[in-house]
């Protein structure tokens, strides 16, 4: 929360575990509505991106624009690298974030 204090737009990227097909790209606008619980892969702390955003909302610390991109994961076991479908989803997210910034950041 301290990292996004005082900014205009927050973009979060994370893995999702919603039950959708692996590699699916989820786009959430947290400015408009609360994030779904149980959507992101959790550690045993049970405190993930959704909880961090909702905590910030409760404490009036949420930036005006909050966009979340989540790629549905395939395999959450220990290991290295991304599954091919997830890698493709990540590439899509990368492009969409660049497009978003091109849209909202005025040219110099």
């Amino acid at each position: 929360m301290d990292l996004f204090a005082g900014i205009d737009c927050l973009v979060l990227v994370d893995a999702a575990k919603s039950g959708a097909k692996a590699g699916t790209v989820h786009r959430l606008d947290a400015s408009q509505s609360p994030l779904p619980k149980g959507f992101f892969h959790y550690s045993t702390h049970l405190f993930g991106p959704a909880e961090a955003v909702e905590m910030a909302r409760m404490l009036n610390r949420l930036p005006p624009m909050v966009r979340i991109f989540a790629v549905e994961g395939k395999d959450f076991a220990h290991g290295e690298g991304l599954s091919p479908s997830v890698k493709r989803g990540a590439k899509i997210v990368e492009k969409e974030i660049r497009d978003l910034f091109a849209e909202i950041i005025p040219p110099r």
Partner: protein
Amino acid sequence: MTSRTAKAKSAPKKPTKNTAKKAPAKKGGSHTTTIKVDALARVEGEGALTVRVKDGAIKEVKFRIFEPPRFFEALLKGRSFSEAPDITARICGICPIAYMMGASQAMEDALGLEVTGTLRDLRRLVYCGEWIESHVLHAAMLHAPDFLGLDDALLIAKKNPELVEKALRLKKLGNTILETVGGRAVHPVNLKVGGFYGIPKRDAVRGLAAELKWGITASAEIAKAFAGFDFPDFNYDYTCVSLRHPDEYAICEGNIVSNRGLDIPVKDFLHHFEEEHVAHSNALQGRTKKTRQPYLTGPIARYNNNFDQLSPLAKETARAIGLPRIVTNPFQSILVRMAETLYACEESLRIVENYEEPTAASVVVTPKKGEGHGCTEAPRGICYHTYRLDNQGLIEKAVIVPPTAQNQKQIEKDLWGVVEKNMHLGQEALTWRCEQTIRNYDPCISCATHFLKLTIERE
């Protein structure tokens, strides 16, 4: 937060991802009830719990750690002594200093080095930072919800945003100390065998003073808020094991003592304590060597053994929040953690206000053959390291005994007693109470496996 609030909210909720079912009655009148907690929540790492009850009597309690073993002791073999602090720091993201300091001290012992003066003070300061961020994270975000009958800290933020803001700011203070002295808020990079890589700047260290003064007040306020919780009635005559130092509330240095009369140098740890591998856990379980009994390490053990060395304000706050001189109720560990947080803020302030940059960032280190021992007070209790080095300073043998591994048997004992005392509760309420009992220990399961699934079967 008042006990009135706590009592009103203490009705347990159905644990998430849990199921509770009652098996059909067997012939002869006895029946089996099974509660499953898929994974113990609001702890660090993966663990579960099984309790078997037959005809109203507990037959078995198993605190199962199924997080995979992490083999750090094996990873260290063949590595240089200088790599041990940074490698062992990866055992834990919330208590890396405990591992860096234990490893550094053990290596310094092996190499015949001593770190004194300002470098020693800086080590104590960065360790205080770790106590602050770890204790506050656990007390406010992971444990407090239990006492309020809430699933998580998010719901506390809804009811009492000022308290959560205070806790978050206090936790951040701890991480800022780690960043200022250690170079990074998580897994600090500035600590090494013999001292530090770079000397922390005077302005940066002294600049922590204002926030530390606020931290002292905030710790006391949070402690007083938590004092209103409804603490379940359970007491145990613990064998309390901690460090004790002649001149200060022990954090980084001291002998290993117990309330049963033990007083030994760190190098004798393995003569008095041992680890046992049990079938139901991937983490070794600690016990005393002579009597093969469980023991307690951590905030309550430190408090009970070293209360006289706390600051006057910490002692006064402890009394004000209802802590007895000797704490025997593990549910009060949340209060002890806040008293220690207050002390850590005071101690940090003392160090930063007097800080002058040392002339050298570390003592000169020359690798050689040797064997050394180190033990410090991680937030969760004593964390022991021993290493054997060859004549090039490469590690031939490493043994690391984290506090959560040492506490496992005592956790099971506590659970036994808590279940025995609360058999009258329904399955869901008892499950909640058992999870709360485990969270009394702020267990770092990830640490314990360096090397809540709750099943209660009533027959």
